[in-house]
């Protein structure tokens, strides 16, 4: 029996096993208790128009802190391993000259892309999006800068400063919530942060502030990964 026949037989067998499962599956019509709670009380309790954000930043804020930590660890490990190859790096490399259209348009496009990233994370509590998405958009602006200028180098000092400062501020805001709201770590109801009307840009308490720092942190980490990759390139 050929390999292909075996594969076909295994696929058929799998289909026989899975089809009954698919047949008897019916999706849940009602939400689980937790989901229903978020929908009923989310807007009232957090003031955020975008329910996803209120879950990500407030109700499950601790998980978000974990996610950011994982991203930080990934970025650190990548830069750690790629720094091994730095020794055999050639001091200069030659690249085909960049087209004039790209260098000209980058001067307009990169600020616009950064603005768009900032828009996404500042409006995270109103429209879809938030810190992670905005950070990724900012990192894609950095790709454009690398493409348009072969001599471009990320300043590691700036990246590290932005990254660590925003991480610290994120935790500090969470701790402030814990101190002022009797034990609610990462609560968004902190006195001093604006609680405007639901749907306006200054609303939802600490959520926009947290998302801003989250966006800066994610953007800095992803840019750092890219920068380390580009720096480790060499052409012989």
């Amino acid at each position: 029996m050929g390999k292909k026949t075996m594969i076909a037989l295994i696929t058929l067998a799998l289909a026989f096993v899975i089809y009954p499962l698919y047949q008897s599956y019916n999706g849940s019509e009602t939400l689980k208790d937790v989901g229903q709670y978020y929908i009923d009380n989310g807007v009232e309790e957090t003031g955020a128009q975008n329910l996803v954000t209120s879950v990500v930043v407030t109700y499950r804020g601790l998980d978000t802190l974990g996610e950011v930590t994982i991203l930080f660890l990934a970025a650190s490990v990548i830069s750690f391993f790629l720094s091994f190859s730095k020794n055999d790096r050639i001091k200069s490399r030659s690249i085909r000259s960049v087209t004039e259209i790209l260098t000209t348009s980058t001067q307009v496009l990169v600020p616009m892309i950064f603005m768009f990233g900032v828009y996404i994370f500042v409006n995270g509590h109103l429209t879809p999006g938030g810190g992670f998405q905005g950070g990724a958009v900012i990192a894609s602006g950095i790709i454009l800068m690398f493409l348009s200028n072969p001599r471009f180098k990320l300043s590691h000092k700036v990246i590290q400063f932005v990254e660590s400062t925003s991480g610290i501020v994120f935790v500090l805001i969470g701790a402030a919530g814990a101190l002022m709201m009797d034990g609610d770590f990462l609560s968004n109801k902190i006195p001093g942060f604006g609680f405007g009307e639901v749907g306006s840009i200054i609303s939802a308490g600490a959520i926009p502030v947290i998302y801003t720092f989250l966006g800066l942190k994610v953007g800095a980490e992803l840019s750092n990964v890219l920068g380390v990759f580009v720096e480790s390139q060499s052409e012989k």
Partner: protein
Amino acid sequence: MEGILEITGGVFMVLGAVSLLVASIGLYRMPDFYNRIQIGTKASTFGASLSIVGVALIFPGWIPKLLAMLLFILFTNPISSHIVGRTAYFTNVPLSKRTKVDRLKEMSPGHLKKVKTKD
């Protein structure tokens, strides 16, 4: 009044879709990479713009965001296709046999100067 706006918007969106359809037929029929990229850029930009105009007529509240989208598409699409086409030419993607003239070949190779990055 609202009905008229919605119908015009629908007409614009259908025109955009037709333009995208023509683009895909063109992608299939054209003989080489450079002609394909021609069709790709133009018709997709035009189709996307028409669809955006259609949406703007149906939902007037979204006009500012749609305007930003339209400007971004009109600005970035030609740049990306210029870069893709240029890279294709300099990595020796062949031109079709029907090509009449190639003035770029006459250029001295000196303009492809390489840039040294200092460390």
